[in-house]
């Protein structure tokens, strides 16, 4: 199977690995080189890659993927509370639970397509969110969020407030206060947490590349292209769609699990429809159907959420400190609409601009740039550029 990668696929994979692993250095100039944001880049990158397997390949727009993210987080937390602080069981449990959950929702939702499918997934996710916030509080700890606690003294303490961690207790792993998630002793916060997420991001990217290049992936793309034709070609599209839905749900579960692993708390708002919308935006912003686009989109949105929102007027003033006072004030006044508390406005405008002018997302922007630079040389190179578009997309 690996033999079927073309040379450009290998180059893409290697470039991806290099870029991801060097993020702590390359992100410094823009002030994003700190563990939490890097972790979020990787985690939401995984989420978006998985979402893209459904949306980018089959064209089915799910508005409920946050539900799987949330379920994955809760599953990981319960693994911490009941079994062990080691992250491997948590990962496995999250992916499995999210997969089962995705199968149930996908089995029902995929009976419909188009907007009806989107609303069905939205409805399931909103039901999960509403219930998790209120009546399911015994499992989710509602508004406060599920957290890791110290080992409970007696069975009278509820499992929400006191953990059992049977495996750790059995192995006699000592605990002081509230323990930290770890991979055989290596703690999963800070940079080690980032590299753990990065490794899984690379693995997830590699799997997505495999799927994209496989016969299975080709059928998924054919579904997007012309599902009716595919049925008359002897392909039963429904199991393919369910498989794609479950796989992308498992990616979401993995992402949710990593959220809990790097930061052991799980809240219901992760399942809200706006969170589902966020991953749609990430994917489209970067370029749906491309491999790198969703990761890029995830990075841009998380950066905006974390950094652009923190640029207050003071920072703006410093940024333009070399300019004369009145001009400074004018610039600061103008930009203060878009940064700090105005970062939502920036986000909204960014989407409008991307969707209006670059329907293929940022990746299409790069392609156009590349074409603009190579297009001057010969008609031939322009043609190669178009075919490489196909290559890239396929």
């Amino acid at each position, binding site marked *: 199977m690996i033999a079927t990668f073309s040379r450009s696929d290998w180059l893409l994979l290697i470039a991806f690995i290099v870029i991801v692993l060097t993020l*702590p250095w390359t992100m*410094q100039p823009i*002030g994003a*080189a*700190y*563990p*939490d*944001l890097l972790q*979020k880049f990787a985690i939401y990158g995984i989420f978006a890659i998985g979402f893209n397997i459904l949306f980018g390949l089959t064209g089915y727009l799910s508005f409920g993927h946050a539900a799987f993210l949330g379920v994955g987080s809760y599953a990981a937390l319960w693994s911490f509370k009941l079994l062990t602080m080691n992250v491997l069981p948590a990962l496995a449990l999250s992916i499995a639970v999210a997969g089962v959950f995705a199968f149930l929702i996908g089995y029902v939702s995929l009976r419909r397509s188009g907007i009806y499918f989107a609303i069905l997934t939205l409805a399931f996710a909103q039901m999960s969110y*509403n219930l998790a*916030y*209120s*009546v399911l*509080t015994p499992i989710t*700890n*509602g*508004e*406060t*969020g599920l*957290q890791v606690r*110290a080992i409970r003294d007696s069975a009278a303490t509820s499992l929400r*407030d006191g953990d059992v961690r049977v495996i750790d207790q059995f192995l006699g792993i000592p605990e*002081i*206060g*509230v323990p*930290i998630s770890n991979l055989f002793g290596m703690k999963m*916060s*800070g940079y080690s947490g980032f590299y753990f997420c990065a490794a899984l991001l690379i693995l997830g990217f590699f799997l997505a590349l495999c799927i994209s290049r496989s016969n299975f992936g080709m059928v998924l793309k054919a579904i997007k292209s012309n599902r009716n034709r595919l049925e008359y070609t002897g392909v039963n599209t429904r199991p393919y769609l369910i498989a794609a839905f479950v796989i992308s749900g498992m990616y979401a579960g993995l992402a949710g699990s990593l*959220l809990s692993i790097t*930061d052991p*708390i799980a*809240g219901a*708002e*992760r399942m809200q429809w706006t969170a589902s919308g966020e991953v749609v935006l990430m994917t489209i912003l970067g370029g749906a159907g491309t491999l790198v686009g969703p990761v890029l989109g995830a990075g841009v949105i998380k950066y905006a*959420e*974390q*950094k652009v*929102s*923190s640029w*207050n*007027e*003071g*920072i*703006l*003033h*410093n*940024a333009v400190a070399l300019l004369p006072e009145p001009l400074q*004030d004018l610039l*600061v*006044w103008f930009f*203060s609409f878009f940064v*700090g*508390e105005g*970062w*939502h406005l920036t986000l909204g405008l960014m989407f409008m601009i991307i969707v209006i002018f670059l329907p293929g997302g940022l990746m299409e922007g790069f392609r156009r740039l590349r074409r603009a630079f190579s297009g001057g040389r010969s008609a031939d190179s322009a043609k190669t550029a178009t075919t490489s578009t196909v290559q890239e997309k396929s």
Partner: protein
Amino acid sequence: MSFRNPSRRKVLKIGAAAGVTTLATPYFFSRGAFAQSMDYRNAPQGDSVTLGFNVPQTGAYADEGADELRAYQLAVEHLNGEGDGGMLNTFSSKALEGNGVNGKKVAFVTGDTQTKSDAARASAKRMIENDGALMITGGSSSGVAIAVQGLCQEAGVIFMAGLTHSNDTTGKDKRANGFRHFFNTEMTGAALAPVLKNAYGTDRKAYHLTADYTWGWSQEGSIKKYSEELGWETVDAVRTPLGAGDFSQYLTPVLNSGADVLILNHYGKDMVNSLTQAVQFGLRDKQVNGKDFAIVVPLYSRLMAQGAGEAVKGIFGSTNWHWSLQDEGSKAFVKSFGEKYGFPPSQAAHTCYCQTLLYADAAQRAGTFRPSEVGKALEGFDFDGLGNGPVLYRAADHQCFKDVLVVKGKENPDSQFDLLEVVEVTPRDQVEYPPELLGGELGPYNDGV
């Protein structure tokens, strides 16, 4: 809030300094520096110390967040010796001299919690990991406060909670590194009960509408406990979905339930909507069981009450602080806030200002920013002059104990800010409870090393 305001600009520039320096410092260098002084997390290296103000800048509580941020900026100004000094002049502890803290200028970074636990933690992590903040403060909901408090405990910095009213913050979910100045539902219940008894008597039937999440339940529990002690009967307690918008389907059953008091355990937009609609349904003007029907909103926020407009008139509730208080501290705070921004501060602004001052004072008295030392300086600290009379920071649960205000919607307000009038100041000893009551465990301090 004009950008031309010179004093504000100056503060902002200082505030930004920290952000920009760290922005430009490659992390390996800063890590190296950190490694040299493995004293405690984010020990300040230069001549300034960075605080992280984590408030909701987007979402339903954005206005509250904006007010908190104003208070923080004012506090930083006062700590650095600018402006009129505000409550520093009335504060009983005189450790702070208006030249920063421990000889270092105070700088700050800001972040947006979006009133979501995930976003709030991410934002706090940025301030700790990237901007070198060694204290995080702010927040406008209990879910967020508890989430960020847990994070600060893990990271090894101090958390000074902003507006959080749930018992859990300093109860079940309390942490050694976390401190709360704001009051809680338990105190609300204890403070409201006697006032309700005077106003409405002991023979009442109460109907609760409760926001269906932890804070709502906690509030409902406290009010039930204290009102039933009075002899009130609880007819029903109905849970309403968060953000329901239209509450009509929950209000109509109240009319025929035989209840004569409606208790709205809602906050924020839910409170505005349910109260507005309850009044529209004529509940405030009704007669039931031969008594005037009454509505009670246990936790009032003036900013939010503005949204309910006329509907708040005559409605009882509790609040942490109100700008119309006439003690020296409150007057000084209202003056310096009002002159800077042109309107009086909210209770959220007040608690955030106090928390910043209290932290700075504790660090000054401890002579270090090490969380464990600062924490010990705060534990059992008795102070006065910050607008609530004599206050104790209880060592056992890191909760402030002070008088609680019972307020009522004003019948004839003078201005748009003049919505509430203080009807009773319930003294501190009436709202105190044993620390074991709410459970939880502080655990050890974490200095982040």
